[in-house]
């Protein structure tokens, strides 16, 4: 029951409520990331650097989230035979970023903020990142399945392709276009 709620809360959460909670999560995630100096602009890696102003964190995280959502919407249109509401996919996909708070929150602890690079602390941070990303992607996949209701045998491939494509585009924009 609890595991099902943690991995798939979307039977109870959708529409305006999901968007509202998703936006709050996005703002909290961006703020904690800024204060702890943790760039999570990718599902594949992270960067520990208090090197940019708040607007930069907001821009890179919003861009990454938006492209993930856009990828799911396009895939949803391609694979779903029924109509779906944009408000549902946007809200649930934004909400699925909640587990990503784990890593920046851990870095608020002083021992995780400044350390020598060969310290075992880095392994704890990598472990936290892996757990949070797996949890977040599981939530995103469930958000996609419930909101778009795809009935194609290509659902999994479509989801993976959308994630990889949005990841590539967001990384290109963040590292080549943002100053």
């Amino acid at each position: 029951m609890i595991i099902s709620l943690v991995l798939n809360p979307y039977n109870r959460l959708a529409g305006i409520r999901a968007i509202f909670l998703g936006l709050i999560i996005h703002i909290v995630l961006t703020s904690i990331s800024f204060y702890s100096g943790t760039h999570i602009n990718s599902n594949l890696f992270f960067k520990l650097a208090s090197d940019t102003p708040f607007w930069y964190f907001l821009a890179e995280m919003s861009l990454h989230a938006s492209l993930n959502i856009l990828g799911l919407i396009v895939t949803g249109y391609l694979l779903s035979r029924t109509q779906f509401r944009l408000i549902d996919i946007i809200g649930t996909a934004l909400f699925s970023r909640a587990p990503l708070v784990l890593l920046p929150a851990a870095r608020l602890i002083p021992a995780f903020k400044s350390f020598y690079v060969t310290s075992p602390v880095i392994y704890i941070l990598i472990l936290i990142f892996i757990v949070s990303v797996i949890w977040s992607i599981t939530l995103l996949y469930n958000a996609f399945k419930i909101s778009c209701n795809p009935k194609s045998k290509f659902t999994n491939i479509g989801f993976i392709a959308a994630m990889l494509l949005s990841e590539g585009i967001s990384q290109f924009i963040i590292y080549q276009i943002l100053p």
Partner: protein
Amino acid sequence: MKTSQTLFFAFVALLSLSACSQDYQKLSENQTDLRKIEIARDFSDRFYNTLKSGKTYEFSGEATEPMANLLSADKQKEIYQQISNQFGHYKSIQYAETWTSVKQSDTHIIRFKGEFEKTAKRLEIRVVINDEGKIAGFWIKPWLDPLT
């Protein structure tokens, strides 16, 4: 219950291991040497402002001899050209933190965040001050919170 206890002890063990294995340690605010920080800040700021104005920096005893020899006039021009092409001209410098080597506690690694015109990202300007108060190392690189 048993799993959570194991996880807790593994976590504590990793943190202890981390504390023991540090070759360098970050100094708290009251452990830092303000004189060394001022030497490092003054040198870095004058160095980059001189290069920005198109001249080259002349050392006058503030750095060790190998350091001064390494940063010849041609080398300075080459370094600044690379930096300004990629990140724009130097704007300002801000003190961030001081680290010290466990083995040589008189040597301080002083880290600054440098601001450049073309990028929103602060770069690390790192100055190593030896036990005689002289500049023994000077780098510029992308900022990362862990000491690399």
